[in-house]
């Protein structure tokens, strides 16, 4: 636009009376001395009886800066009447329409402008953005690519990447962002977005690289700090992560993801009460976020406050009815509340929703086994093995929580013993108890187990979450259908669980953390 401004001033060698003060207006506008500028414009317009195009133009720009878009649109329209040959005027009219949310009208005007000026990246870019708002993604992509050919620009890359994300093509989005980062390596926003995308895909090395770069260029970047902190958290560096969060907390004290992460840091450090209070604050700030509720449920399960855990988990299910793991945790809570019937139903629901997670079947098997239903347990056990094998075949590298394997082996032993009919009743009891004790210990001692796997899961679920967030109608419509059976609440909360009961939960507590930055990512 600066070019355009110069054009006006330079192309007037013998200044006609109308244009006499253009230089002054320009100077004041560039200095951001808007009050003065307005006064000069007023004078100029009075002299010229409103015919000075440049004065009207700058006045309109000032109005826009003040947020008075409607007035500025009218002035730009006057401009384009005064000088119908200028593409700039039309572009500004279109832009005003765009800012007012009238995308269709804006597109029409932009098309007209493009007739006057074929090779303008700005027109193509803005057309693309308008199409994006109208959800014509194909046209939008074409226009944006067009703009990129004409002139490379960060903003165009951003929009293109956003469109790819909206369509769910993460790979293509990453390609776009990569090119963008090559083009302008110091743009922190691009760096952060790319880092977060890598994080979602589980490529920690590159994610860390990009986020680190973003932080070097802009140490106070809230999103990048949060993401970097969460990665440290994933690797068990809770103290470092906390120190990162401390910086963010002073800047953004009301951010729910931040409090969620801090809470999970404390959880990792086994400060459960602090964890609960942080998570509760997060929940207070964002009552609709199921991830916070999930974490709250998990922490309460660890604290053996099963009734509270049940509440948080059922609330989470109400908000996110399509996630198997929630049902699994709910089942664990129900088992501890002595409601085996509903626990079974919950497990079944979990298995139906989550086809690939062997933990569901393993926990179900343990429950059935403890109930004395050996056949069912065996069935679930085999199902679990099948899933594990399937996972191994698909070569998910980071699927191997040791504890799960350990428990699964014990379970297998117990079941096979059952098959060969060598066991006697007391021995089986003692075994299951022993197993319970062992697994319980392992859950408390080797705490940061399989953090990579957990993170991967968290990320993938985060990606899924991002998708549902953008299509709220679909999620809302599906919500009531998959509602869990309404379960009566057991009043005895925090009561001591009997030794038989403790055998079920520990292995279920596969730790899942850091469900943040999905919100950031989709913004």
């Amino acid at each position: 636009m600066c070019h355009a401004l110069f054009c006006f001033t330079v192309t007037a060698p013998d200044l006609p009376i109308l244009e006499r003060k253009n230089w002054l207006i320009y100077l004041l506008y560039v200095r951001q001395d808007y009050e003065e500028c307005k006064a000069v414009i007023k004078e100029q317009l009075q002299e010229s009886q409103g015919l000075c195009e440049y004065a009207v133009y700058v006045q309109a720009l000032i109005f826009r800066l003040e947020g008075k878009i409607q007035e500025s649109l009218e002035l730009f329209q006057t401009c384009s009447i005064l000088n119908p040959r200028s593409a700039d005027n039309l572009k500004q009219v279109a832009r005003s329409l765009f800012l007012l949310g009238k995308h269709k009208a804006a597109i029409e005007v932009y098309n007209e402008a493009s007739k006057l000026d074929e090779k303008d990246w700005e027109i193509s870019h803005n057309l693309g953005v308008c199409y994006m708002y109208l959800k014509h993604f194909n046209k939008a992509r074409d226009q944006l690519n067009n703009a990129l050919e004409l002139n490379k620009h960060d903003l165009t890359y951003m929009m293109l990447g956003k469109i790819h994300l909206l369509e769910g093509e993460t790979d293509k989005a990453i390609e776009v962002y990569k090119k963008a980062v090559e083009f302008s390596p110091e743009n922190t926003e691009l760096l952060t977005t790319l880092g977060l995308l890598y994080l979602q895909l589980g490529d920690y090395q590159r994610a860390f690289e990009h986020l680190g770069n973003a932080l070097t260029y802009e140490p106070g970047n809230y999103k990048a700090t949060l993401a970097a902190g969460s990665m440290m958290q994933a690797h068990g560096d809770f103290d470092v992560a906390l120190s990162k969060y401390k910086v963010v907390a002073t800047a953004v004290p009301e951010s729910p993801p931040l409090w969620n992460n801090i809470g999970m840091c404390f959880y990792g450090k086994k400060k459960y009460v602090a964890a609960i209070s942080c998570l509760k604050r997060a929940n207070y700030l964002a009552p609709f976020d199921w991830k916070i509720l999930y974490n709250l449920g998990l922490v309460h399960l660890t604290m053996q406050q099963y009734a509270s855990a049940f509440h948080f988990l059922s609330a989470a299910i109400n908000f996110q009815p399509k996630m198997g793991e929630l049902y699994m945790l709910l089942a664990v809570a129900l088992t501890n509340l002595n409601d085996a019937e509903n626990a079974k139903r919950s497990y079944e629901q979990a298995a139906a929703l989550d086809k690939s997670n062997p933990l569901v079947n393993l926990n179900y098997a343990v429950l059935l086994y403890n109930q004395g239903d050996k056949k069912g347990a065996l069935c679930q056990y085999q199902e679990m093995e099948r899933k594990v094998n399937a996972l191994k075949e698909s070569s998910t590298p980071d699927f191997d929580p040791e504890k799960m394997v350990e428990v699964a082996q014990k379970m297998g032993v117990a079941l096979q013993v059952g098959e060969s009919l060598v066991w006697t009743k007391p021995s089986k009891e003692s075994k299951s108890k022993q197993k319970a004790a062992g697994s319980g210990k392992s859950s408390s001692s080797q705490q940061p187990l399989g953090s990579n796997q957990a993170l991967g899961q968290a990320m993938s679920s985060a990606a899924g979450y991002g998708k549902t967030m953008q299509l709220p109608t679909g999620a809302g419509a599906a919500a009531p259908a998959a509602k869990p059976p309404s379960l009566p609440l057991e009043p005895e909360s925090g009561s001591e669980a009997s030794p038989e009961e403790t055998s079920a939960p520990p292995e279920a507590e596969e730790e899942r953390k850091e469900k943040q930055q999905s919100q950031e990512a989709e913004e």
Partner: protein
Amino acid sequence: RAGLARPRRSLLFPRQQIGLPCSAPAALGAQRAGRSWGFGRRCCSCPAGRMGLDPLFHAWSYFRRRKFRQCSELCSELLERPPGNQMFYFLLYPVQAAWSLKTRALTEMVYVDEIDMDQEGIAEMMLDENAVAQVARPGTSLKLPGTSQGGGPSPAVRPVTQSGRPITGFVRPSTQSGRPSTMEQAIRTPRTGLTARPITSASGRYGRLGTASMLTNPDGPFINLSRLNLAKYAQKPKLAKALFEYIFYHENDVKNALDLAALATEHAQFKDWWWKVQIGKCYYRLGLFREAEKQFKSALKQQDMVDTILYLAKVYLRLDQPVTAMNLFKQGLDRFPGEVTLICGIARIHEEMNNISSAAEYYKDVLKQDNTHVEAIACIGSNHFYSDQPEIALRFYRRLLQMGVYNCQLFNNLGLCCFYAQQYDMTLSSFERALFLAENEEETADVWYNLGHVAVGIGDLNLAYQCFKLTLVNNNNYAEAYNNLAVLEMQKGHIEQARALLQTASSLAPHMYEPHFNFAILSEKVGDLQRSYTSAQKSEEAFPGHVDTQQLLKQLKQHFAML
């Protein structure tokens, strides 16, 4: 992202206003006088011989037992008796005694503690020219609660009132309203549009609280003020005090009361501090704060009294000099260590200046002196609730329950605390009882609103929707409920409904940032950046520290600046 308005708890205990015979020296002095007449009469009344009990003494006994109606009836009987039936000696005294006793009985019937009662009318608020500095520095004025210095919870956690103060645990007559900036805000009360404030205090609340001037006696008023020779009564200090209180409280005729007091203090050669305090009270009512200050100060010089300090502090608060008032309280505490009303006064000032944490400290001091102080317990409880400690808040509210407070607000708060402290078994029963105890529709609306929050907490959005709807049925001006309904509609994807609801909410409660911010977000999503910008600006005005608003504004400004 969209901010749900916070659950608000409303402990609206009205301050105890009527019936407490305050320890004011006025009451004491008059009592003494009354007693002496009683004795004087007794020795000669036995011959009159009715039931063996002298009627005047009987009346006196009624008065002591706070049966003021019977007392005044008996007194009027005595007064109506033809003089011939009276004893021939001490002729004057019994008449005077009965007259004085009746005056006092009538006064006591409508007595209102003058210290606590303070309702600013619209006129006082809008046309307030008493403040020393019109543009005060932050931290020295009650008008700009603005920046919180005490590290209290931010508006995102603790809801604020119309004037921008965090909501308190205890509603007091004058504090909650603050000073509104526009006439519309002044007419609307902080919570709702249901109860308007009086136009001016002189005509409104005082007259209504002491309803006596409205009650008509069949024989006309007991004392005809216009025919009273004030100068004559001012000569008799004992009678004059009772008469003054009658004129001040019962007749609510400040001008005549002031005349009487002025004459009386002249008669006492300006040596009676009691009269000075009374003159100060009259001046205060008339809005002559500087004169009132002079009188109270001079009274304090003669006699150190807690009451006088409280009156003087009230004057300073009215002049918008909270720091002076606080110093006064502190000086008072040096002379009366541990005086509850003084500590409580300091705590209130801190709270009004948005300095929540030190207010809590002082409230704790109050509790050390008087562990049944309802206001202190309620304020500390709500403070704990909003700083993420619902368990501790629950303990305080339980204490209130043990003390015998039994009302809708308390059960409402108990229910909320129970829910947030995960005592799920008690939550719903508490709310049920709160609903049962609700005295009016506004209270019912509050309870339903909080129930809506509970429903959101357990993830049952349909129930939440219904609860908020019920809130609106009970109180059509409940801005928070409109906002939350809009958020729920947004969740369902009904943009148009959400927009309409948000507009209603923001017009009803311009002091809340949530509806503005939500509207800004909504418009931004649709692409209507102009409206988004104006709403975001309003939101920033209501809550300058809100990071999301700031980010949104930054984004929008970039949009606008881009060519």
